[in-house]
């Protein structure tokens, strides 16, 4: 429609392939760098706290998105235990194909934080995790850590 003529033979339908031939390389930023280095070196979770808004960001932010104050010097330790606030079981991978093992993912509020961390749930009892379940971080051994969010292997259910 709109045009005077259309393609009326299916073998005349063509398409052209293409992609985005780039590699992306991201810095973690001022706040992210400190967060991941602390996790890597000392296995501790650092958030930033906006005193005015009484809100603790985890992952930490350089600034408070609410009042726009700088949080550059407002670091506080949180976690490593926390509470599940939302949970899903992923059955598909990025290609839309079934995962060999369904993967539980959760929003976790670390003790002392207001912000929520997204991560995997693993270990025994992972399948029973629900909103309100207490979990704790399982970190990779110090020497395997690379300053990545994957330095946390997963969160596992805990009784405390």
């Amino acid at each position, binding site marked *: 429609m*709109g*045009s*005077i*003529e*259309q*393609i009326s033979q299916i073998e*005349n*339908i*063509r*398409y*052209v*392939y*293409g*992609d*985005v*031939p*780039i*590699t*992306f*390389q*991201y*810095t*973690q930023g*001022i706040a*992210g*760098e400190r967060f*991941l*280095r602390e996790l890597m070196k000392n296995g501790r979770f650092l958030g930033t706290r906006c005193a005015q808004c009484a809100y603790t960001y985890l992952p930490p932010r350089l600034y408070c998105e609410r009042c726009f104050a700088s949080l550059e010097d407002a670091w506080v330790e949180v976690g490593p235990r926390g509470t599940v606030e939302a949970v899903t079981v992923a059955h598909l991978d*990025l290609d839309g194909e079934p995962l060999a093992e369904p993967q539980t993912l959760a929003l976790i509020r670390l003790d002392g934080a207001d912000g929520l961390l997204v991560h995997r749930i693993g270990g025994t009892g992972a399948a029973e995790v629900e909103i309100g379940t207490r979990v704790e971080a399982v970190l990779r051994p110090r020497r395997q850590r690379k*300053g*990545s969010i994957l330095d946390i292997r997963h969160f596992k259910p805990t009784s405390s």
Partner: protein
Amino acid sequence: MTSEREYPGTPLTDGQLRRGEVLLVEHEPNARYAWDAGVAIGRSLAELKKGRLVGRECYRCRRIVVPPRMFCEQCFRPTDRWVYLKDSGRVNTYSISYLRWDATRVAKPSIPAVIEIDGASKGMGILHLLGGVKPEDVQMGMRVKAVWKPPRQREGSIRDIRYFRPY
């Protein structure tokens, strides 16, 4: 005010990156597409495979346009008919490139050009490459003609024309 205060921003050097002083995440995107060529470009690609260039004519403004489109962008109405064009033309402008698309350097330069195609309205050019000529011998306004791949190697692509050469 602008000269007096401290401006934010933390520049990183290549050295800091090389020495691994900054945490980095790399991601190679898997973003792949198959774009519908549609009526106009679909036909255009099919004609390229046959060794021909094709345009569209708008009866209202009387332009014959290439690349072809099913709409006239000047009149906002459908274009009316197909017109076969010659595979020759005139260099409207050219440059001499020592860069690949990703900014890496090449020793033997390529010569991209806008070529006004014979048989289309005045000023109707397409982007292509010049070949069979030294960069210093190319001239603005030079007449050029398509050098096609052999029929069996053509696949219905703008690259079915290897380049345009002076003639």
